[in-house]
């Protein structure tokens, strides 16, 4: 096993599938000659040629539209949005066409849309968002949010293999910061299966993406006080692993739902509601949410820090629940 960064693991997964399956191709802005804005596809054009690593015009709707058509014709396209924020331009193709094609016409649309998302580096309101809840709300779409290099590779391969449109949210703040052992061979991580990032008895944190690490640091802060925190990394928010969450909550009886996306209507609300509905009699405290406030992502570093949930915020929330 090699130690790879999160970003290298994504490249590795993509390369693995392109080598294995001739139907897989990549399309996006600057993904070819330039190797992608974040260099995920660096060297891909040399290896796979420009017909399988295609530079697209600056038109997300055209990229997703082309992928949808190609998928219906039997291909396995992987689109890259330069930033997840720009997927709003492709909303109609994704939501109206790709998400409903199977339902309307019976034809599968096996496309994967890679979405560099998240903040933490002063990207401002157009380059920092986490729009997963908007798409998790659309029946027919799947939403994947890996947190570790191993999951990044395994989940990307599952996404490409899946017969449905899959949105693959890769967190930019994890790209080069997070490293981990990644198997060299091909493997898949199933969609809809959560991972226990950390075992504990007193409080459950349900989260995904970069917040897994924020939660982990907060949990470490509470360790000396004898508070034992369990962290459930959802890995995919649609489908999401309800069983794993409920099982953990039944054990700890206290739940904190954490996400980097804004609070109102965020996917955490769905999780909190499900816990209240299905584990009510197991609860020993209110279900707590920690999320970004309902504003655009600020550009200024101190403001962005205030916006994105920080370790101290989560530690305070955990403490509050532990003491409840």
């Amino acid at each position, binding site marked *: 096993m090699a130690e790879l960064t999160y970003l290298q693991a994504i490249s590795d997964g993509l390369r693995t599938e392109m080598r294995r399956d001739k139907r897989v191709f990549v399309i996006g802005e600057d993904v070819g000659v330039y190797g992608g804005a974040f260099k995920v596809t660096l060297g891909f054009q040399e290896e796979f040629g420009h017909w399988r690593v295609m530079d697209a015009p600056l038109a997300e709707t055209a990229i997703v539209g082309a992928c949808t058509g190609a998928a219906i014709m039997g291909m396995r396209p992987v689109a890259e949005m330069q930033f997840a924020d720009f997927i709003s331009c492709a909303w109609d193709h994704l939501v109206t066409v790709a998400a409903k094609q199977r339902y309307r016409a019976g034809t599968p649309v096996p496309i994967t849309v890679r979405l560099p998302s998240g903040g933490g580096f002063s990207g401002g309101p157009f380059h920092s968002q986490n729009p997963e809840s908007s798409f998790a709300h659309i029946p027919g779409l799947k939403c994947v949010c890996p947190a570790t290099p191993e999951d990044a590779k395994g989940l990307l391969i599952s996404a490409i293999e899946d017969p449905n449109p899959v949105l693959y949210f890769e967190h930019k703040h994890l790209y080069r910061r997070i490293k981990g052992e990644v198997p060299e061979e091909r493997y898949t991580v199933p969609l809809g299966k959560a991972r226990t990032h950390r075992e504990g008895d007193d409080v459950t944190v349900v989260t995904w993406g970069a917040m897994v690490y924020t939660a982990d640091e907060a949990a470490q802060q509470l360790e000396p006080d004898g508070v034992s925190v369990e962290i459930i990394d959802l890995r995919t928010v649609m489908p999401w692993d309800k069983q794993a969450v409920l099982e953990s909550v039944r054990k700890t009886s206290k739940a904190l739902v954490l996400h980097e996306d804004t609070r109102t209507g965020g996917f955490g609300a769905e999780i909190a509601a499900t816990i209240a509905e299905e584990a009510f*009699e197991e609860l020993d405290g209110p279900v707590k949410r920690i999320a970004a406030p309902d504003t655009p992502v600020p550009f200024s570093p101190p403001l962005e820090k205030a916006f994105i949930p920080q370790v101290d915020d989560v530690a305070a929330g955990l403490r509050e629940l532990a003491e409840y």
Partner: protein
Amino acid sequence: MATTEAIDVVMPQMGVSVSEGTITKWLKQQGEQVEADEPLLEISTDKVDTEVPSPGSGVLSEILVQEGQTVDVGTKLAVIGGDGASAQPAQQEAPPEPATAEAAAEAEAPSSAESPAPTAPPAQEQQEQEPAQAAQAAQSNGKTFVSPVVAKIASEHGVDPSQVQGTGRGGRVTKKDILNFIESGAEAAPAAPPQPAPPAQPAAPPQPEPAAAPQAAAPAPPKPSPAPAPAAAQPGESFEPMSAMRKGIAEHMRRSLDTSAHVTSAIEVDMSKVSAIRAKLKKEYQQSYGVNPTYLIFVARAATETLREYPWINGEIRGDQIVTRSYVNLGFAVELQDGKGLIVPVVKNAETLNLLGMAKSVTDIAQRARDKKLLPDEVQGGTFTITNPGGYGTFHGTPVISQPQAAILGTYAVVKRPWVVQDDLGEDVIAIRPIMNLTLTYDHRLVDGALAGRFLRDIREKLESWDESAY
């Protein structure tokens, strides 16, 4: 306020310590027109049964709480007006009766109806009710909140969560606390059976004798055993639900006996002079004022006057302080017409009333008590109570003190008896005299027997030598 705006009718706060009320009767039906201040419904609380006047005019568009249901103070009971129904703003803004001040306030701010906040009581009442409020606050802290999982574990193991030391916020019992409690050997008491025992085994004891559990872990702390389920009706028995008032009386009577050290002293009073004055005043009182100069009001007048010199009998134990007062708020125990309830309306500042004033006040509150028209203020704040069970000929009794007072005076039947008196020559002779027994039941924690005796003696002296010019 728009004329079509809906007015909410809410369960009024009938006194600081009252938290719920039962709807006994809707006096208007859904769809009927109702005018502001017109009686709309009757409610029953543990303090008072009363009519609730309508907070506004309009069509009673919706009844949300049916007769017989008990709901918390502030609960929305009905809606007046709304779509198509017209309300008259001028009448809504007229100052409402105190009984419905809160209801009216709610009606004027319909948006707040969903989150009724307890209204601050009037200043004097607040002062008097401070201990009660503190007790309420203590109950509403985290200690008594039982989370779903704790409730579940408690019921599974037959544990009373209030027996568990809580470590959560505000002393709340957490899941860990109750699990530790169970683990530490507080072995589960058998959960009460959901159904009463089948009649085939009526002799089965509802709970095991301590000796029947020899396997119990050594020093198991005393565990609360679940209250035995009420027995099912036996042949010839029938059930009727306890009214809120009955429950209130039951609780108060038990609590009073648990609180005060009840002692009763009795004295015999020759009512000849009072009787003569009554006969003289009767016609005037009835013709000019529509009231009767009853024996009771003479006793009330004499007692009030005597209480001035016995502040402890008009007092109260509050914590480790003795409260005395410069006024007398005289409570009168009144039987309600259906014979199924009792209420103690209070004549405030009785020391300011002469005999006629006392007669008018007593007649007024007794009548309104029977008509269920008392205001919540009028059943609170008593400092001394008179009960009059003598109407049916009883000559002695041992009434229960109305908490937190120190004493209660009982008046009994006036009966003609052979009585030893002295004639003009100073010789003992037997005369026929109207004699009334008075009892003082007092809290011996505060009032000693000698004090009570002197108090009764002074009342007797006032009654036997009634000074018309003074009273």
